[in-house]
């Protein structure tokens, strides 16, 4: 079936992989798989030690004023341009949205003057040249720019595996007109996995419903948070999916960590697992489940799936 995600110019290099706190601490496999895929698809990238936290967690939990986010985002931009890798590829959709929002606000002269006053203390300035070279991409957008190569590199056919994607709200709903595809029916993940032969569920009821995490809701208002997550689990179970893929560690944590707990509390059956999109794509291309995809970090038991797709035998080269 013709894929609906629009074509983009291939990104071959100049990428700065923007490390994410949640990914590094909760699912390092997602980062490793992304790096592995970048090498496989010939995307030249760096991990810049100068890059710091995107402040998303603090800001969206109302613990931190936006001015702080603005200054740190400007600094991260300067650092990226300085390192000659102006394409910031975000592993987490929250980093993507908050940095892009900061970029927009930095267009307003007063705010830029205010930020530059702060940056002057550390000898940096966020000027026109940086504003015009810095680019903000989600990691999946970079992978999609090389998607023609995927078909040739598939080593493990995922034929028969039913996949649904949970589109990250911060990717789809903060800049709805700038997503790759339809912000109310994002098919980016499904189209990335299509060469591996998965059966995609495409658009399904409540695809755009929230994962329930909501940053602090998980801690401040757990019953509501879990209720929303359960609704989504019910929908996905009704679709008989085998894997639900995510593009933001917040959602991954909310689903993967609480999947079994919700199952036990509501004694209902949701027979499927959760992975990052990059992890499943890497597995299809023959990546090692432990060293590259970091399956051990997941709460759910991924072995049945790995057996089914032959990820435990040596991958045929």
């Amino acid at each position: 079936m013709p894929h609906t995600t629009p074509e983009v110019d291939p990104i071959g290099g100049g990428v700065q992989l923007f490390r994410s706190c949640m990914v590094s601490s909760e699912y390092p496999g997602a980062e490793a798989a992304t790096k592995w895929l970048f090498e496989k698809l010939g995307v030249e990238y760096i991990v810049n030690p100068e890059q710091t936290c995107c402040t998303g967690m603090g800001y969206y939990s109302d613990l931190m004023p936006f001015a702080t986010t603005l200054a740190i985002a400007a600094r991260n931009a300067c650092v990226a341009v300085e390192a000659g890798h102006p394409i910031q590829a975000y592993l987490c959709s929250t980093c993507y949205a908050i940095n892009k929002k900061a970029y927009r606000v930095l267009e307003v002269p007063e705010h830029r003057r205010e930020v530059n006053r702060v940056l002057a203390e550390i000898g940096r300035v966020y000027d026109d040249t940086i504003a015009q070279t810095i680019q903000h991409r989600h990691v999946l957008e970079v992978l999609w720019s090389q998607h023609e190569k995927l078909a040739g590199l598939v080593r493990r056919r995922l034929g028969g595996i039913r996949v649904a994607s949970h589109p990250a709200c911060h990717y789809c709903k903060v800049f709805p007109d700038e997503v790759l595809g339809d912000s109310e029916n994002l098919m980016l993940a499904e189209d990335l996995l299509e060469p591996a032969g998965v059966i995609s569920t495409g658009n399904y009821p409540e695809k755009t419903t929230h994962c329930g995490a909501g940053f602090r809701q998980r801690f401040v208002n757990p019953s509501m948070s879990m209720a929303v997550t359960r609704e989504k689990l019910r929908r996905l179970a009704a679709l008989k999916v085998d894997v639900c893929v995510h593009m933001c560690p917040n959602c991954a944590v909310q689903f993967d960590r609480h999947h079994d707990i919700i199952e036990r509390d509501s004694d209902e059956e949701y027979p499927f697992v959760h992975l990052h999109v990059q992890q499943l794509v890497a597995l299809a291309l023959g990546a090692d489940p432990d060293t590259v995809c970091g399956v051990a970090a997941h709460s759910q038991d991924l072995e049945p799936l790995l057996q089914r797709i032959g990820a435990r035998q040596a991958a045929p080269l």
Partner: protein
Amino acid sequence: MTRCGVFLCECGGNISGVLDLPALAAGGRSLDGVVNVTVSQFLCGAEGRRLIEDVVADRGLDRIVIGSCSRRFQGPTFERIARDLELGENTVAFANLREGCAFIHRHEPEKAQRKAETVLAAAVARAGRQRPLQPSRTFLNRSALVVGGGIGGLSAAEELASAGITVHLVEREQSLGGYMARLSKTFPTEDCAMCSLGPRLANAATDSRINVHTLTEVTALSGPPGEFRVRLRHHPRFVTDQCVGCGTCTTVCPVELESQFDLGVTRRKAISRPFANAVPSTFAIDNRGWAPCTSTCPAHTAAQGYIALAAQGRWADAYRVASAPNPFPSVCGRICPHECEEQCTRGRLDQPVAIAAIKRFVADQAAAAGPVEVPARRFEDRVAVVGAGPAGLTAARDLALLGYPVTVFEAQPVAGGMLRLGVPEYRLPRDVVASEVERVLAHGVELRAGERCGQDYTVDSLLASGYGAVLLALGLPQARLLPLEGRELPGVIGGLDLLRSRALGDPVTVGRRVVVIGGGDVAVDAARTALRLGAERVTMACIEDRATLPAQPGELSEAIAEGVLLAPSLMPVALLGDAAVSSVRFQPCTLAEPDARGWRPPRPVDAEQVELEADTVVFCVGQALGEDALAGAAGVAVAGGQIVVDRETMMTGRRGVFAAGDAAAGGGLIAIQAIAAGARAARGIHNHLRGEALLDVWPMERDRAEVPDLELSRRRSLPRQEMRVLPPEERRTSWQEVRLGFNEEEALAEARRCLSCGGCSDCHSCEQACPAGAIDLTQKPWEEELTVGALVVATGHQEFDARRKPPLGYGRYANVLTQSQLARLLSASGPTGGELRRPSDGQVPKRVFMLQCVGSRDSTSRGNEHCSAICCLFATLHASLIRESYPGTQVTIAYTDLRMPGKGHEEYLKLVAERGVRYVRSRVGELAEEQDKSLRVRWEDTVTGGKHEELFDLVVLSAGLEASAGTTQIARVIGLQQGAAGFLKEYHPKLRPVDSQRAGIFIAGTAQGPKGIPETIAQAKAAAARVTSMLHGGMAATPVEVAFSDPDVCIGCGVCVSVCPQGAVRLVDGDRAHALVDQASCRGCGICAAECPSGAMTVGGFSDAELLAEATV
């Protein structure tokens, strides 16, 4: 020198409140050319007019400068005064002192004063440069074109006709009626829509002054108001006026399509009529051109036709359609490479439809189509056909059907040509060929087998013995052998000879090890035949590599499965052996670049040679004409081993002698191409014998219907029926047919996968069933040019496509409809006869939920900003109708703001609310479909603040209005401006609401903006009044602000001709070529004047002199 009078207007304090007019006047008097300056309280009133008249008379003024409001506001008033005082056109200049000075600088009076002085000086300077211009008169054609046949167009047409104006009513769709025809009832009186629309339709049909053009579009507009030249393009209806509207054709039409009139709620046949009292009442066929399969087939067989009939199990009709262009459907169903399947649209969704397999099953039901009845003899000229192959026999049948006595000469003892003697019977059983040959001969065709052309008779002898025409369809029976040493050794045979002797039943044996040289279908047939003749090891050696091998992939893989060995990229260099051949030496090779005819010769590669042992070597490297076949055929030229033929008449170099099939140049080497060539030859012979081109030798090509990806993605994918095949080990030594074909159940299932790309499938079932003989499938689109005085555009609106809101599930969830679709369900003329039925299970819904403002009052990029005005009333109307007819059904309407403007609407709301309709203030973002197709709706009532979650049986979306596709298209063609959501922009929202930006073109109804039926009719009548007043005078002055080129100064460079967007300028050549402007078509934009290198071109009222004077003061 001009005598200019300046008149300054206080504008009742608007101007004098900011500017010191006396001081300005004083300054004005000192400007050169000014003889008088006066200040007046209200210049635009009667007192101002008298003042101007007096001063012009007293001081003999010939120019007037008006310092007042913007020229766009009162300009026409002062220009009319100048005209009345015979000062002429272009004698008034304006200083914009109000909007251009006083209003916008009222906080800085002294700067305003200084600016006013400059503005006044500029106007006076301009007046000094203005030259009077002569308007020319144009004749106003007392006719009007109304675009759009909805209630708006109908009302305007009716009004114009009653004013005695000839009306041309143009409608894109098949019938007049537009959107209103789809409604059940109308608010607030709940009277039936058709009751008010029906009489308008009848009136339009019967009024002699209204010319109705349906299935017609405006493609071009030129000329000035009053003399618009309009080009119309009429799409074929394929049904003539004899149609009495009985509908028999719909019972036989096999093609079902989504009903566009019923907005996809139901399906209707390819031939249909949208609703009972449609105008015109004749049916129409939805023909979208040839489906890709039909357009790809060399014989243009109506493949979609016989597949559609097969899907309904109508085997006799299917056979009729399949055998019409091709007397060998059963043969082709088996051996054709079926290029049609490669082009099948379904291939882009999942797998192509198995067209050939279906055709085979259909052809095998030939008996169902009954015996062949011998066609009547209509001509005496006898025709001789040389060769009883597919080409010859097809020509023979077609000529017999045309009424000619035909005699077919065949060199071999049996008819069928390559079908009988070339293709082995495990691919094509002999009885299949025999029965189809029999059916051809049953047309009264005489067969004389065993007589070889060039020996027993010649072309000359045939013509001499009284045959009117001869068709050489003798094919290429001679096997070609490569000139290698050792060719004469015993055991070296031609592939065609092996196959022929096997087919004739002669005793033929092959050695233990067989090498077949060649990569085509003949080579594969020879190899598999050798296997069946008992060879132990059969190797197929060819110059091509695995990818470029010409044999059909299906055949090749079957051969390999049976054990045939493949040795690609080898060219034979020598045949070795002494008593008989024992081995063949090969040189590895690749293919060189293709030559003129596209053949790629082998190019040796320096690798060491290969030797294959062989007891028998079979050459399958090409075919040739029989040695002396063309002896005694003077004038018949041969080139490249094939007879040279004139492509248009199929005639060879010799008058009366034709050629077709493999033997004729350009003929492909597959059966269907030979058959198509035979049919062409028959038509060529008919034209020759009758002495005039009665039939098109090449059939009229129709453009190819393409199904867009978006529509394709909405179809469910169905797996393809794979054909059952004899297992390799079983078929390796048997001659039984390998492919077992479909059974009836498989054929039906596969035929139902067809997507009906072409709409009408050219199966002619309707043509045969029509009692009035009103079907004419040969109609073509045609164009027409009219001259009309004015235009009224009433092209209406379309419903917002709710698919642009994916979370609402429209188009995915079965029970989510829009209000228009609900109107069709509730309409007595609708698909359910007015019964409210859930699409998923046909039950009466108990709980109905209606959601307002879908796509309207939406500031995101996924909807429209405007409120669509009628949806709240539309929803309330339908809720009321449902509550009336189904008291047990609960209706909930979720609104953002209930909007019931206008007479009687608020009262109607109260009435309906009392009938138990629940109104909740909420804007639902997402729907979810449950297992039983009911819909879970979660909403927050923004009045009470409560959160609700309920299940509903049916959800109806009140999708808003936006400009129709027709509106956007007409706007592009006639240059109208469109505002938000594509609505046409009126000249002035308050003062001139039904005028468009262009003079002489008026707009009405929902094409201009969302509105209900009463306002649409009011605007339509207003537009008609505007047209009547415009055309009433009979004559009109053309505007003077048009371009003019001074012939003496013009250097004839033609730049103006190339830049004019109206095409209103042309070069008049003579001794001094110069530009001439057609002032009737020129609209005065001035692009040419700005581009003119010599300064010859100017625009009335905006010459360079005037503009420069104003700009450089």
